[in-house]
């Protein structure tokens, strides 16, 4: 069984030629009463480091399921999932948790920022959980908020911010521990077209400048121009749709 270090996951992948994400014949089905619904029917996917990939498809087609499997939140029924060369299928729950903490940054559709905490404290949270000192975490949070264009709003309650600003805080939080893999679940679903485009431009810039691998699940075709590659999930299989940028 592979083991995962909670502090330095990328030390295990010195070879930059290794794919950030590699899926082989991944299947997943859900039982709904008597009926078994096959959501993923042998999905294959390779995403290189620093690549920005969009997964497209209508609601309920299994995009979020696929993202959850890549994010080690859900286990596939069968198939192989590798993150930076490490097979994650055999990892215990605690190891998958540690891998998520150190390697994956999540941007959620509904942000899920903690009520009661300021923007800065929300960004500090993953750092504090990772054992970073409060002072260093604060410094890093300020830097990230500046990066996403929220300088001067560090002490603001996200409940008083616009949805676009909240999504920026969520992106800053996802970047807090400098994870090599960013997973975004419908990041523009709550945003208007203009704000959505701004957020996706920001995500792409961050991916390119900081060499993050970004996988975005969306059904918003207006933002496809920010992807390196676009895949469409059709009948449980992934089909490369186009190369956008």
């Amino acid at each position, binding site marked *: 069984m592979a083991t995962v270090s909670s502090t330095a996951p990328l030390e295990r992948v010195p070879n930059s030629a290794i794919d950030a994400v590699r899926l082989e014949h991944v299947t997943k089905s859900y039982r709904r009463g008597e009926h078994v619904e096959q959501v993923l029917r042998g999905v294959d996917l390779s995403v290189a480091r620093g690549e920005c990939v969009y997964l497209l498809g209508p609601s309920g087609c299994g995009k*979020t399921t696929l*993202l*959850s499997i890549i*994010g080690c*939140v*859900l286990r596939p029924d069968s198939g192989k999932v590798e993150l930076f060369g490490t097979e994650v299928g055999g990892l215990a729950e*605690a190891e998958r*948790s*540690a*891998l*998520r*903490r*150190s390697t*994956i940054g*999540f941007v*959620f*559709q*509904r942000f*899920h*920022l*903690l*009520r*009661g*905490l300021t923007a800065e*404290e929300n960004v500090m*949270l*993953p750092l*504090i*959980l990772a054992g970073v000192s409060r002072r260093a975490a604060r410094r890093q949070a300020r830097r990230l908020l500046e990066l996403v264009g929220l300088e001067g709003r560090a002490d603001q309650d996200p409940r008083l911010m616009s949805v676009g600003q909240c999504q920026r805080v969520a992106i800053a939080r996802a970047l807090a521990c400098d994870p090599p893999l960013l997973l975004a*679940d419908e990041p523009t679903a709550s945003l208007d077209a203009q704000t959505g485009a701004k957020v996706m431009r920001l995500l792409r810039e961050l991916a390119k400048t900081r060499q993050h691998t970004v996988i975005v699940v969306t059904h918003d075709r207006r933002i496809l121009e920010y992807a390196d590659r676009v895949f469409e999930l059709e009948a449980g299989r992934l089909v490369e749709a186009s190369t956008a940028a």
Partner: protein
Amino acid sequence: MWGIATKTLKADPWKCLMALLGLTFTLVLMNVQGGLFIGLIRKVSLMVDYGDADIWVGHRRMHNVDFAEDIPAAWANRIRALPDVETAAPYLIGWSSITVPGGGREAVVVVGAEPPELLGNAWNVVRGNPRDVLRPDGITVDVYELPKLGWPRIGEVREIGGKRARIVAYTRGVMGFLVAPYVFTTFSRAARFCRKPPGACSYILVRARPGADLRALCDQIRLRIPEADVYTRGEYSRLSVDFWMRRTGLGISFGAATLLGMLVGLSIVAQTMYASVLDRMPEFAALKAMGIRNRDLAIVLLAQALFLALIACCVGMVVVGGIQWAFSTPRAPIWIPWWLSVGSCLAVVLVALASAIPPYMKLRQVDPMLALQ
């Protein structure tokens, strides 16, 4: 982690307030119930605790200071002969009745102390002098018992057991566990009031010489008077308390009420914290997706519980102080020793920490997928 815990807690001010109310209620109930119980139970052994005697000698199987059997007063002479004894005097606690204006009578507990030491005489005298009982027909009564006695004034004459008695002094707060008021006087006068046979008394009160070993002295007295029971002040005080506790179930009654208060507090706080966790389920799911450890979740919840408990202890003790100031009377004293306050605060902390268990169990089961749905 402490900052995250308290800030997320304060983000739900109403739930935070509800939990605080639950814990504060628990603390107040424990202190007031406990204080009432201790105040009441202290009255059981009041005569022993304040009687100024080091050793109490009484009849075989003596168990309660207010219900004494007669013993020979002459035992005092045998005890006085012991080298470690400074004073040994007969003491009387008996029942009689006092006349009240309008022709009625009121039952009283007559306490008689032997001159010249007057060992076991009234204390906390607020009008007159404790030794005024040496004046002809002199008796001392408590100011809080005056309504029962028909508001007798100093110098007023009454009859106790058909004998003339004159009120010469008032005590304040010398009230026993029983409903009958205490009347202090001299030993011989008390014997007349209670129609005791000559040479009979209830106890021999002994004051030891300074530095004497009281337990050894008790053994010496037992050797001299094998038919007597002999106890140090502390022993007889505990024995009197045990008597009432066992015979009346007083401890069970107060203990049950206190336990109920704790359970009510526990359920309020646990329910509030649980509801708060349910409200924040997607946030916690997101945290789990981000890889938060169950240990960290436990720390957050425990920190929240501890924070609530500390606030509740501070607020609760102020409330308890107010209740004690407003409602504690000599008739129903609320006596709160330091160990009760400290103990109740610790109990509240435990209640709060225990309240964090159900929400923690819920959080352990939260599926991180919830954040992605």
